[in-house]
C-alpha cells in the first residue's frame, strides 16, 4: 500500500453459493482509493460493482464469500488492516464498520427503518462506536443535530424526532448520509447514492456529497452506472464488466480517450442532448431486426390527419388527505392533476416529463380509466367519430380498450410469473375473442418477431428472460390488440443503459412501421429528447410548459423546466453541473418560482411563444418577463 492510499483492493474474488454450487461474480477486481479523492466504480447491473462494495464492508449476503484477494484499509489512526482476512462479524470489523468506513445505499426509502425516528437511527452509529462512548444523552443529541445540519437539514432539531416516512426522498438520503458521516469516517462508500432520486434532488445530493468530501477530506468510493454522475464527481474511474476491470484510470483519460470497446459502447449507448434529429443510439448487444409485416386494419388508418388522435381538456383530480394522524386533524387537499389539457397528433410521440409526485402517472391512469377524473374530458378520434373516453360505459369501454394500450415501468412485476409467454400474449386476444387458438398462436409468434424475440420464447416463463427481454414482451403484449395509442410509463427507467438503447430503438422502429402514436412518460430528459417530437412538462399537477422538443430543450421558458435541464449531469467533463439557487431550494415547489409563474389556475394561462411552444404563466405577465 502506497502513501496517501486509504483503500487498496487487490485481485478481489467473491463467489455466491447458488443452490449448492459456487458462482464467481467478482473475478479479480483491483483498485485504490486515495485520501481526499473520489474513485468511481462504473458498470451495469450484474457487473459485480455492488458486491465489491459489500465485500469491503464485509456485509455480503449470507451465501456470498470472499474467495481470494485482499482489501487493505488504512484507518485514520492505527495501522493497515486487511478487511478480507478478518471474520465478517468479529469485533475488529464491527469497530471499523460505521466509524472508519461507512456506506450509503441506493434506496433511501427502504434503507431506513420506518418505525425508528431519524435521530435514533443516526445517533446509533455514534452510540455503538468509541467516539460516542461516555457521551451523555444531551451530548449525543447535540452531536447528531450538528451532523444533520451539516448534511443540510433546515431544522435539525425537528428532524431528529421525525420518522423517515414523514420526509421526502431527498431528505431521507440526507439522513442516510448523516448516519454514515456522524463518526467522520476516513472512507465513504456510496452505492448508487442518487439513482432512486429525482433529477433536481440528485443534483442537490451530488453537490452535497462533493462539498462534504472536500470539507471532511474524505476518501469516497462511488458505485454507479451513471456516467454523468461519474463525470461530475470522480477523480479516478474503474470500469467493471462481468466481474473484471476492463479499464481504469484518471477521469480525464477515461472520458477523453476511452480504450476498451465496452467503455466506448457505454459512452455511446446513453442518449444525450446533442444528438442529431435522426441519429440512432448504439446498443451494446442485440442484432439487427428485420421488419415484419404486421396485419393492420385498413379502415383505421384511412383517416383525416389534421384532427388530433387524443384531445385532453381540463382534466382534474383531487385527493383528500387526512393530514397529521388518524386521531383527528384537518383534511388536506392534494391537486394531483390540476386543469391539464393537451393533444396528441396521430403518429407523433408526446413526451410527458415531471418528477415523482408531479401527477404524470395519474394522468396516464385517468386516460386508461384506472382512476376516475373529477372533471375534464378525453376525446379520442377513432377515425370516424370522436369518443369521450371518460364517459364510456362498461360495454363501450371494453370495445374501446384495444385502441389504447399500456407498457409499464417494471418489467418484472408487470408479467405474471405463472403464465407462459404464449399465455401472456394471447390473453388480450382471448378477452376480446379474437381468432381461434391457432390464429392466436400465429399472431403471438408475429408479435415476438416484431420485438426481436424468437418463437421459441412462446413456451417459456418470464423469469427465464432478462429485464430488457421482459420489457419487450410487455411491448408485444401491448401491441397484441393492434392499438392506435400506446402509453409508455417509464418503459426504460428500470433497464441498464445498453438495454435501454435497444428498447428505445425498437420503440422508434415500431412507431414508424406501424404508425403508432405514443404518450411517453419519463423522468429522464435525455431519453424524452431522443424519443419525443413534442414534450409536456408537468409540475405540481399542472402542465407548466409544452411544445416541440427542440424548443423545450433549447429555449426553455418556465423556471421549472430550466431547473430540470440544468440538473441533468452530463457524461462530459467540459459540462460540469452548475446549480443555481432554484435547484438548491427545490424547483418542484411552486413557492420558489418567480411571481409571474405562481398563482391559482384561473390566474394563469398558457402563453404562446410561437411554434406551439406554450408556457403557463400569469395572463398579465409580458413576454419579456417570461424570458427574463
Amino acid at each position, binding site marked *: 500500500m502506497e502513501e496517501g492510499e486509504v483503500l487498496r483492493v487487490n485481485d478481489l474474488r467473491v463467489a455466491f453459493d447458488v443452490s449448492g454450487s459456487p458462482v464467481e461474480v467478482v473475478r479479480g477486481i483491483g483498485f485504490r482509493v486515495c485520501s481526499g479523492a473520489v474513485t468511481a466504480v462504473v458498470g451495469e447491473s450484474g457487473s459485480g460493482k455492488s458486491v465489491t462494495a459489500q465485500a469491503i464492508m464485509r456485509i455480503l449476503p449470507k451465501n456470498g464469500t470472499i474467495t481470494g484477494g485482499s482489501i487493505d484499509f488504512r484507518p485514520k489512526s492505527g495501522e493497515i488492516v486487511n478487511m478480507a482476512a478478518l471474520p465478517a462479524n468479529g469485533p475488529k470489523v464491527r469497530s471499523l464498520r460505521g466509524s472508519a468506513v461507512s456506506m450509503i445505499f441506493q434506496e433511501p426509502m427502504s434503507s431506513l427503518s420506518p418505525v425508528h425516528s431519524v435521530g435514533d437511527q443516526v445517533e446509533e452509529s455514534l452510540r455503538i462506536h468509541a467516539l460516542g462512548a461516555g457521551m451523555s444523552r444531551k451530548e449525543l443529541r447535540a452531536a447528531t443535530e450538528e451532523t444533520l445540519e451539516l448534511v443540510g437539514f433546515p431544522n435539525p432539531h425537528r428532524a431528529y424526532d421525525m420518522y423517515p416516512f414523514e420526509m421526502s426522498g431527498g431528505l431521507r438520503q440526507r439522513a442516510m448520509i448523516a448516519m454514515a458521516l456522524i463518526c467522520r469516517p476516513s472512507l465513504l462508500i456510496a452505492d448508487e447514492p442518487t439513482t432512486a432520486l429525482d433529477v433536481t434532488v440528485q443534483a442537490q445530493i451530488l453537490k452535497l456529497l462533493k462539498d462534504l468530501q472536500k470539507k471532511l477530506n474524505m476518501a469516497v468510493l462511488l458505485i454507479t452506472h451513471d456516467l454523468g454522475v461519474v463525470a461530475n464527481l470522480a477523480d479516478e474511474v474503474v470500469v467493471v464488466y462481468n466481474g473484471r476491470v476492463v479499464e481504469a484510470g484518471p477521469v480525464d483519460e477515461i472520458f477523453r480517450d476511452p480504450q476498451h470497446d465496452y467503455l466506448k459502447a457505454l459512452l455511446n449507448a446513453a442518449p444525450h442532448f446533442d444528438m442529431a434529429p435522426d441519429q440512432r443510439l448504439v446498443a451494446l448487444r442485440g442484432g439487427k431486426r428485420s421488419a415484419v409485416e404486421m396485419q393492420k386494419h385498413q379502415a383505421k388508418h384511412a383517416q383525416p390527419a389534421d384532427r388530433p388522435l387524443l384531445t385532453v381538456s381540463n382534466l382534474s383530480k383531487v385527493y*383528500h388527505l387526512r393530514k*397529521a394522524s388518524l386521531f383527528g386533524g384537518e383534511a388536506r387537499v392534494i391537486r394531483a392533476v390540476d386543469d391539464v389539457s393537451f393533444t396528441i397528433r396521430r403518429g407523433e410521440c408526446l413526451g410527458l416529463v415531471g418528477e415523482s409526485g408531479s401527477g404524470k402517472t395519474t394522468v396516464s391512469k385517468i386516460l386508461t380509466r384506472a382512476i376516475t377524473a373529477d372533471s375534464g374530458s378525453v376525446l379520442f378520434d377513432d377515425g370516424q367519430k370522436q369518443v369521450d373516453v371518460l364517459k364510456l360505459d362498461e360495454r363501450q369501454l371494453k370495445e374501446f380498450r384495444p385502441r389504447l394500450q399500456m407498457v409499464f415501468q417494471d418489467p418484472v412485476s408487470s408479467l405474471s410469473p405463472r403464465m407462459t409467454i404464449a399465455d401472456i400474449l394471447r390473453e388480450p386476444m382471448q378477452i376480446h375473442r379474437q381468432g381461434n387458438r391457432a390464429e392466436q398462436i400465429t399472431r403471438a409468434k408475429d408479435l415476438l418477431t416484431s420485438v426481436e424475440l424468437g418463437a421459441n420464447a412462446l413456451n417459456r416463463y418470464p423469469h427465464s428472460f432478462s429485464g430488457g427481454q421482459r420489457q419487450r414482451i410487455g411491448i408485444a403484449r401491448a401491441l397484441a390488440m393492434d392499438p392506435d395509442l400506446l402509453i409508455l410509463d417509464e418503459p426504460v427507467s428500470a433497464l441498464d443503459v445498453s438495454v435501454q438503447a435497444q428498447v428505445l430503438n425498437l420503440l422508434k422502429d415500431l412507431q414508424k412501421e406501424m404508425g403508432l402514436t405514443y404518450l411517453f412518460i419519463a423522468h429522464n430528459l435525455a431519453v424524452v429528447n431522443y424519443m419525443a417530437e413534442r414534450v409536456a412538462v408537468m409540475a405540481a399537477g399542472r402542465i407548466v410548459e409544452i411544445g416541440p422538443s427542440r424548443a423545450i430543450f433549447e429555449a426553455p421558458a418556465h423556471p421549472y423546466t430550466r431547473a430540470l435541464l440544468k440538473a441533468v449531469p452530463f457524461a462530459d467533463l467540459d459540462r460540469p453541473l452548475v446549480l443555481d439557487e432554484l435547484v438548491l431550494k427545490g424547483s418542484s415547489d411552486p413557492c420558489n418560482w418567480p411571481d409571474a409563474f405562481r398563482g391559482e389556475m384561473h390566474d394563469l394561462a398558457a402563453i404562446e411563444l410561437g411554434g406551439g411552444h406554450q408556457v403557463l404563466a400569469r395572463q398579465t405577465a409580458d413576454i419579456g418577463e417570461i424570458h427574463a
Partner: protein
Amino acid sequence: MVYYIFRRMLMMIPTLVITSALIFAIIEAPPGDYLESYIAELKAQGEAVDTARIEYLRKEYGFDKSPVERYFNWVGGMFVGDFGYSFAYELPVTAVVGDRLFLTVVVSMATIIFTWLIAFPIGIYSATRQYSWGDYGFTFLGLLGLAIPNFLLALVLMYLANVWFGTSIGGLVDPAFVGQPMSWAKFVSVLHHLWIPVIVIGTAGTAGMIRRIRANLLDELQKQYVTTARAKGLHPFKALVKYPLRMSLNFFISDIGSLLPAVISGAEVVAIVLSLETTGPLLISALQQQDMYLAGSFLMFLSLLTVVGVLISDIALAWLDPRIRLSGGVRK
C-alpha cells in the same frame, strides 16, 4: 389519541347491539324453550309434572311474553349486572360462570405464556438459520404439533401422566380438593394438573406461531435497513432485536385482539376430554339444553371481549408503529 379512543368506544355500541340481537335470535330460533324440554324430560322419566310450578316459572321468566319483550328484558338486565338465570343449574348466570372463570383464565394465561416462551426463540432461531438442520427439525416438530388432533394428544398425555407420575386422570385439581376453598395445597395441586392442558392446548398454537414468526422475520431480514444496521457496525444480535424483530411484531400485536376471547372460551373439546372445570364445556352444555340466558350471556361476554381486544390491539399497534400513528389514509 383520546378522541380516537372515544370514537372507537362509541363505535362499539352499535356493534354490540347488533351482536346481542343476533345471539338472541339464534338462540330463540330452534322450536321450544328450556321449560318445554324440561317437561319432556320429566315425562320421559315418568314423573308427575307440577303444572302450577311450570306456570309459575313460565311467568317468572317471561316465557309468556313476546320474544321482543324478552330481548329487551335481557339486554336491560345486563346493564345492572343481571345476566339472567340458568335453568339447568337453578342459579343466577353470574354465580354459575364466576366459579369457572378463574380456572379458565389460569389455564388460558398459562397456555399463552407457554406458547410465547416456546414459539419466540424457536421462530427467531429458524428464521436466522433458514434451511439449517435445526430449522428443518423444528419445522418437522411444528408440523407434527399442528397435525395431531388435540383430543388425541390429551388422551395420550393423560395416560402417560397417570402411569409415570401417578397424577389423577382429568380435572384441574386432585379430586380431594374439589369444592374446597383455595389454599396453598390446592394451588400446588392445580399446578400439578395444569401442565397437561397447557401442553395439549398449546402445541397447535405454538406450532402455528413458530411458522408465522419465522415467515414474518424472514421477510424483514431481507430488507435493506437490516443491511444498513450491519453497515453501522451494530452487533448482529442487537441489530436483529432492534430492527427486523420489532418490525415483525405487528402481526403478533394484531393477534392480541383475538386472544382475549380465546382466554375465556376455546379448547372446548380438550376441556371435555380432560374434564376441566373451565367455561368451555359449560357453554356447550348450555347450548344443548337450551339454557338460553346462560348461553346468551356467555356469548355476549365473548363478543364484548372480542371488541375490547381488537380495540386494545389497535391502540397498541398505533403506539408501536409511527406509520399508523402519524399518517392518515387517503380518502378516495
